[in-house]
C-alpha cells in the first residue's frame, strides 16, 4: 500500500504538473506531492522495521534494510528540496530567468525524477533497475538544460551522451548477467533477473561471465556515480543546472547509482569469490578522491567546487565499499547518508548565496556574514561538515573509514591523507573569503528559505553525536548483506 503511494504519488504528480505546472499553486503542489511521498516512505520504513524485509507484487519489488533507508533518505531530501525550490524558483522566475513553461517542465520533471529514483531503489528486477536509471538520466537532462544558455545546453549534452553510453554499457552487463543466470534459473518468467533469486544462486553463476558483466556494470553505473575518469559530466551538469537540480543530483542520483553498483558487486563477489571486485572499487574510489582533490584547487565556480567535492566523497564511499567488512560497509552507508544530507544543504545555501550576490563565481561572492548572517553561517557550517569536521556526522564515517584503511590497507592511507588535506585546503581557502570579509553587494529583499538547510545540518550533527539505534540496526543488517 505504502509502496503504491510511494511510487504513484510522484508519477501522478509528474503527470498532473506536466499538464498544469505553470499555475501559481504548482510549487505548493510539488511540495505536497513530495510530502506525501515522504510520509509514505516513513510508513514503509516503519513497516520494514516492524516486520523485516519483504517481497511484493510477485517479487517485482523488494524492500530490505539496504534500500529502505535510501528510500527514506531520498524521499526526505526530495521533500526538503521541493521546499527550497519553492522559494528559489520563484525568485528565479522573478528575475526573469525562467518562463512559466519552463517552470512546468521543471516541476513535472522533478516529480518524474523522484519516481525513477524510488523505482530504481525499490525494484527487485535488474532490468527494471536499468530502465529506471536510464529514465532518471532522461528526466534530469532537460532539467540541466533548463536555462537554455549555451553553457547549460553543452552541459546537458555531455551529461546525456556520457551517461547514455555508460548506461548502454550497463545494459550489456545486465544482458550478460541474464545470460549467465538463465542457465541456472531458466528463462521462463523473469526470475533470472530478480535480484533475490540471483542472490540465492550467486555461487552457482558462471565466474567469467559475471566478472565481465561486472566490468560493464561498473563502468556503466560508475559513470553515473561520477567515478574518475568517468566523472567528466558531473561538474558541468551540477554547475549549469538550476540549484535544486544540482542538490538532488548530488544528494540522490549519485547515491542511487552507487546503490546499483553495490547490488551488482554483491552478486559478483558471491560468485567470483575473489578480491577483484573489491579491488576495482577501491581503485576507482581512491582515484576519484585524489583526482577530485586536485581538481578542487582549480575551481572558480562555487557550484563546480562542490560538485567536485561530491566526486571526492563518492570516491570515499566507493573505497569503503571496496574494502568491505562490517565496519567499512557500515561507514560507507553512514557516509552516503550524511553526504547527501550535507551536500544538498550546501547546495541550498549556495543557491541563495548566488541569488543574493547575483553570481556563481567565487570572486564575486564575498562577505556573506555581512550580507546575510544566516546564509553565511549556513555555508560555513555546511562546508566544515562536508570537510569532515567533528562533531558533524561526516566525520564519524570518515573516522571509521580511515581507521579501517589504516589497519587493512596501510598503503592507501598516505594517499587518503594527502587527498583529504589537499581537499580541505582547497575548499576552505575558497569558502572562507566568501563567508568572511567585506562585501559590496546590497542585500536583496526576498528572505532565504533556510529551514531545509538547518534541518539537514542538525540531522548531520545528530548523526555525528548519536546514531539512533534503529538506524544503526539497518546499517548493520545492510552491511551484513553487502558482506
Amino acid at each position, binding site marked *: 500500500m505504502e509502496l503504491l503511494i510511494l511510487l504513484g504519488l510522484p508519477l501522478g504528480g509528474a503527470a498532473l504538473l506536466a499538464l498544469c505546472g505553470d499555475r501559481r499553486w504548482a510549487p505548493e503542489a510539488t511540495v505536497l506531492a513530495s510530502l506525501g511521498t515522504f510520509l509514505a516512505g516513513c510508513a514503509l520504513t516503519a513497516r520494514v522495521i516492524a516486520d523485516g524485509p519483504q517481497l511484493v507484487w510477485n517479487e517485482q519489488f523488494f524492500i530490505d534494510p539496504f534500500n529502505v533507508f535510501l528510500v527514506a533518505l531520498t524521499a526526505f531530501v526530495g521533500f526538503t528540496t521541493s521546499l527550497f525550490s519553492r522559494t528559489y524558483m520563484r525568485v528565479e522566475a522573478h528575475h526573469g530567468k525562467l518562463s512559466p513553461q519552463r517552470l512546468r517542465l521543471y516541476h513535472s520533471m522533478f516529480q518524474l525524477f523522484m519516481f525513477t529514483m524510488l523505482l530504481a531503489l525499490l525494484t527487485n528486477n535488474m532490468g*527494471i533497475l536499468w530502465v529506471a536509471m536510464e529514465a532518471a538520466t532522461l528526466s534530469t537532462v532537460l532539467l540541466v538544460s533548463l536555462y537554455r544558455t549555451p553553457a547549460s545546453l553543452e552541459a546537458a549534452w555531455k551529461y546525456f551522451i556520457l551517461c547514455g553510453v555508460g548506461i548502454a554499457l550497463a545494459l550489456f552487463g545486465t544482458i550478460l548477467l541474464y545470460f*549467465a543466470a538463465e542457465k541456472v534459473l531458466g528463462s521462463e518468467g523473469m526470475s533470472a533477473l530478480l535480484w533475490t533469486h540471483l542472490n540465492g544462486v550467486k555461487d552457482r553463476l558462471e565466474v567469467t561471465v559475471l566478472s565481465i558483466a561486472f566490468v560493464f556494470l561498473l563502468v556503466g553505473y560508475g559513470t553515473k556515480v561520477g567515478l574518475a575518469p568517468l566523472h567528466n559530466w558531473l561538474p558541468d551538469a551540477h554547475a549549469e543546472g538550476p540549484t535544486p537540480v544540482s542538490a538532488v543530483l548530488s544528494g540522490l542520483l549519485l547515491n542511487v547509482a552507487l546503490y546499483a553498483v553495490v547490488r551488482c558487486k554483491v552478486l559478483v563477489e558471491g560468485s567470483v569469490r575473489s578480491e577483484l571486485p573489491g579491488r576495482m572499487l577501491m581503485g576507482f574510489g581512491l582515484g576519484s578522491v585524489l583526482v577530485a582533490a586536485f581538481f578542487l584547487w582549480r575551481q572558480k565556480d562555487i557550484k563546480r567546487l562542490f560538485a567536485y567535492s561530491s566526486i571526492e566523497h563518492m570516491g570515499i564511499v566507493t573505497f569503503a565499499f571496496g574494502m568491505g567488512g562490517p565496519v567499512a560497509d557500515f561507514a560507507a552507508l553512514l557516509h552516503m547518508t550524511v553526504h547527501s544530507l550535507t551536500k544538498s544543504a550546501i547546495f541550498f545555501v549556495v543557491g541563495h548565496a548566488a541569488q543574493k550576490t547575483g553570481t556563481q563565481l567565487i570572486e564575486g561572492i564575498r562577505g556573506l556574514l555581512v550580507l546575510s548572517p544566516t546564509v553565511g553561517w549556513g555555508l560555513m557550517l555546511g562546508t566544515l561538515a562536508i570537510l569532515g569536521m567533528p562533531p558533524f556526522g561526516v566525520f564519524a564515517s570518515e573516522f571509521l573509514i580511515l581507521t579501517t584503511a589504516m589497519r587493512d590497507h596501510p598503503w592507501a592511507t598516505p594517499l587518503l591523507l594527502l587527498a583529504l588535506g589537499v581537499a580541505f585546503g582547497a575548499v576552505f581557502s575558497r569558502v572562507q573569503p566568501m563567508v568572511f570579509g567585506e562585501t559590496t553587494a546590497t542585500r536583496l529583499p526576498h528572505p532565504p528559505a533556510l529551514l531545509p538547510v538547518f534541518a539537514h545540518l542538525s540531522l548531520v550533527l545528530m548523526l555525528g553525536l548519536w546514531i539512533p539505534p534503529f538506524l544503526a540496526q539497518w546499517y548493520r543488517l545492510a552491511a551484513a548483506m553487502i558482506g
Partner: protein
Amino acid sequence: MPDATASVPLSAQLIHLAAAVMLLLSFAMLAQRRLVSLVNLFAAQGATLVGSTLVVAYSTGQHELYLSAAVTSIKVVLLPYVLHRLIRRLSLQWDTETLVNIPTTMLIGLGVVIFAFGLAQPLSELASTVTRSTLGIAMAVVLLSFLMMITRRKAISQVIGFLAMENGLFFAATSATYGMPMVVELGILLDVLVGAFIFGIFFFHIREQFESLELSHLESLKED
C-alpha cells in the same frame, strides 16, 4: 570445414549471416562520411536486427520474441524516419564530416573486433543456444559504435552511433540469450524512444544556439 557448417541448422546459419552483416554494417558506419547514408546504414542495421530476431523467434518458437521483433521494427522504421526529417529540417542533406584518417580507424576497429571475440570466446563456450557465437559479434558491434561515437565530430552522427550501440545490445539480447523478459524489453525500448525524442529536441536547441551541430561548439566548459 563445410561439413561442420552443414551440421549447423539453417536458422543458426541465417543468424550467423545476420551477425556478419551487422558487423559489416557497423564497419561501414565507422567509415561513412555523409550523414544521410549514415542514417540509411543505421536503418539497414536495424532491419538486419529485426530479421535475426524473427529467425530466432521462429526457430526457437519463443513467441514473445515476435513481439520483440515488432517492437524493434518500430525503431527501425521510426527512428531513421525521424532522423531523415531532422536532417531535412536542419538542411544537413549534403553535410559531410571529415574523419580522422579512415584506415587508422579501420585498423583500430579490427583490433577492437579481435578483442571482442577474444573476450566473448569463453562466454560462448558456456552458452546453451545454437547462436552463442553471436555474442562476440554483438560485443564487437557495441564497441565499434562506441569507437564511432568517439571519432565523430557532429552531434547527429554521435547520436546515430549511440543508437547503433543500442542495436548491438538488442542483438546480444535477442540472439545470444533469446530475449530478455518482455517488461524489460518494453522499458528499454521506451527509454530509447524517449531518448531519441530528447535528442531531437536538443538538436533544435543546439542549432538555435550555435547555428550548427558541430560538437566543436560544445567545448567551452573545461578546466582552464
